[in-house]
């Protein structure tokens, strides 16, 4: 049955879709206008959903067309969905405001390629992400994943250079490989249990060979899309080559889409299936991602590539929550401190990384390059930008009171509580390494210039301010510990009860 506030989920889903259809028909400068009008509407709906969830303390559900599962499809929002919906809406709005200067249709023409494509693709990324967070059906999530891929790939190569075409094609090949593996798992699960509804599956799934095969295929497919080590090679050229606003969206949001479905799969569909070995394996891959990618990031000469490798390392942290959420007593993954910590890491990384790519874009615009060794003096020329970069870095390193700090603190708590001390070492070493690559950039930026610094283009204040606001958000996110953090766990124990049956 739909809950009274359930229609909000339909509005959340359709708002960006309606926006992109109108933007496509009107075209030209109107595409930007429609996109910018859609953004506050979507943000308001997302916040309303979070408030409604907070008040009702139970999942919002909407049965589409009145056809109940297993025949029909439901939309369902729990605490994880609501938190991610709000995060994505905030980052999309900020990116939209930030991108105006870069993707403005020139006066001379009625419509230009890059702006038209960017605004529509941005709305499609948003629509796809919302579907990922709200979808209660595994095949429906597949369609959402494909929408996300088709919107994200062209964003990589909006500048039309051969290198970015190549990066985009590599990305597409990886993503298509991933979605077919996911789809294989969907076929097997339907064959074995006769439903694709997440809640219904959760009640009937058993740890048996067909579930293991399906789970393994879907997991590998989603890992390829999330760029977890060792399936990560496509990400750095794609994220570093895209225009700054596109990089912000790709790195902050798009990789979280497939990650979110993985969380749904492991925590909600089959918490008892992977077992301790599976959870430890995912954690080990995450640890490898943290250590390897941080070291590679340290050795980068280009700022955007450094940030892209930092994304790979930060994705690694997301996977530490799987072994930490594993309860040896019941033999399954439980929604607890580790899940909260992991999701908080996803949220604070989203805001921090978007801010960081924006600052990198601003420095590139001002200097005409992003070579780290030649950043000297940029802190004096663009103090607000470098300050924003530093704040975002604070959250990535995990210094208090940032969201990154709270996330890592929760993960550490879970590790110590569960006696899994080896993850403590990984988290601490990872923090040191990220401090290393952030300070490498900052040290250059505040240092004296090797040659007299000339700014190629003025940097508008409001663009610096947008990056700063996002970075501040990421730092202040640690304060959610005072209350709002409980949002993440709303409607979670209910699902857990279903699983224990």
């Amino acid at each position, binding site marked *: 049955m739909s809950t009274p506030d359930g229609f909000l989920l339909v509005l959340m889903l359709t708002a960006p879709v*309606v926006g992109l259809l109108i933007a496509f028909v009107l*075209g030209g400068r109107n595409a930007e206008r429609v996109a910018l009008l859609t953004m506050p509407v979507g943000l308001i709906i997302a916040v309303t959903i979070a408030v409604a969830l907070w008040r009702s303390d139970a999942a919002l559900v909407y049965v589409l067309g009145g056809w109940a599962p297993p025949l029909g499809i439901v939309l369902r929002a729990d605490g994880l969905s609501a938190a991610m919906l709000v995060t994505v809406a905030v980052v999309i709005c900020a990116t939209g405001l930030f991108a105006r200067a870069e993707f403005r249709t020139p006066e001379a023409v009625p419509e230009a390629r890059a702006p038209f494509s960017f605004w529509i693709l941005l709305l499609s990324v948003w629509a796809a992400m919302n579907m990922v967070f709200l979808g209660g059906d595994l095949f429906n999530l597949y369609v959402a994943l494909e929408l996300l891929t088709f919107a994200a790939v062209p964003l990589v190569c909006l500048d039309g250079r051969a290198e970015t075409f190549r990066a985009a094609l590599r990305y597409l090949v990886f993503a298509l490989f991933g979605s077919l593996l996911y789809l294989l798992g969907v076929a097997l699960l339907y064959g074995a249990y*006769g439903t694709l509804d997440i809640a219904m599956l959760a009640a009937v799934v058993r740890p048996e060979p*067909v579930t293991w095969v399906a789970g393994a295929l879907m997991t590998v497919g989603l890992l390829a899309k999330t760029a977890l080590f060792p399936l990560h090679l496509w990400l750095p050229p794609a994220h570093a080559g895209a225009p700054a606003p596109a990089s912000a969206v790709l790195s902050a949001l798009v990789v979280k889409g497939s990650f979110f479905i993985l969380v749904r799969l492991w925590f909600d569909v089959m918490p008892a299936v992977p077992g301790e070995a599976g959870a430890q394996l995912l954690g080990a891959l995450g640890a490898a991602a943290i250590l390897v990618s941080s070291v590679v990031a340290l050795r980068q000469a280009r700022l955007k590539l450094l940030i892209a490798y930092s994304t790979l390392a930060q994705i690694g942290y997301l996977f530490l929550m799987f072994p930490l959420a594993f309860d040896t007593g019941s033999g399954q993954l439980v929604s607890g401190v580790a899940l909260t910590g992991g999701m908080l890491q996803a949220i604070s990384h989203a805001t921090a990384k978007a801010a960081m790519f924006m600052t990198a874009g601003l420095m590139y615009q001002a200097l005409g390059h992003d070579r780290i060794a030649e950043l000297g003096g940029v802190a004096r020329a663009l103090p607000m930008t470098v300050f924003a970069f530093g704040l975002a870095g604070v959250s990535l390193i995990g210094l208090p009171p940032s969201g990154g700090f709270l996330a890592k603190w929760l993960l550490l708590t879970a590790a110590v509580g569960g006696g899994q001390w080896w993850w403590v070492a990984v988290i601490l070493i990872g923090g040191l390494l990220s401090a290393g690559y952030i300070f490498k950039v900052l040290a250059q930026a505040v240092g004296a210039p090797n040659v007299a610094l000339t700014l190629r283009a003025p940097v508008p204040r409001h663009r610096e301010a947008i990056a700063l606001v996002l970075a501040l958000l990421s730092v202040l996110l640690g304060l959610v510990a005072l209350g709002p953090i409980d949002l993440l766990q709303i409607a979670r124990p209910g699902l857990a009860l279903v699983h224990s049956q």
Partner: protein
Amino acid sequence: MSWTLALEAGLAALVLGVAVWTLSVRQTFAAVVAFVVYGLALTLVWVRLSALDVALTEAAIGSGLTGVLLLGAAARLRATEADAVAERPGAGVRAAAAALAALVALALAAAVLYLPEPAHTLAPAAMAELPATGMRNAVTGVLMAYRAADTLLEKVVVLISLIGVWSLAQDKLWGGRPGLLHHADPDGALAFLARRLPPVGIVAGIYIAWLGADQPGGAFPGGTIIAAMWLLAMMAGVTDAPPISRRWLRLVLVAGPAVFLAVGFSGFFTAGAFLAYPVAYAKALIVVIEVGMVLTIAATLGLLMAGPPERSDKP
């Protein structure tokens, strides 16, 4: 072994043989030809699996359109094949890949063999609810009613992939006409076909789409046939692709999802839920959506085949 099973085993062997040929033949062009045969043989498999709707879609889209698309690409990329040979991975990598592929195939085979008996099925549920949709073809009922959200979202997916294709154009050609200009002898055989066939093909496409409510068919195979007629006319130079900036073209491209959304929202008031149909008008509303969808599918598929704008609109 019964006669039909022997026939099916032969069919399976054909599919497998053609698949191996697709992978192993040296020339990409030949590989694409093999792939088209693969698609047609799979179509027969779908018939044997009593999935006629899928068979029609596989023949039209999986084999037909995809085949034409890849043939064109293979012809344009012929010069790059020699370089790729030099990049072939070593024996170790190939062996590892083969082992991995074999492992996956084995695991899948085992999983398929041990699916539970009796099988789970939604067929009775789908049939029981079908009268409320006004449809008599259960697959159309699933696509247009029970899982309408998938179909609606997939319309958006196809539109976004077209926008993605357009976004790859060169800046100076934005707003121009998609694809290369086709020169064909106006009195030649192709032009003859391109003038005579489309009227028949368009009628056939509409017929198949209309039939979908009660029998195998539907908007996808129907729309694909119409798209094919359009492509034929474009290839023969009988008509030209419209510039992508045309307002009417954009309206046609959003007609399907827009009508779908509009009917979906009207469901809030008339049937109590988004994407719900009042029983008395269910068939009429679904037909309205399908008309929009056929139009949009035909235009979108045709333009996806034509590619990004490659010629300026200005003469």
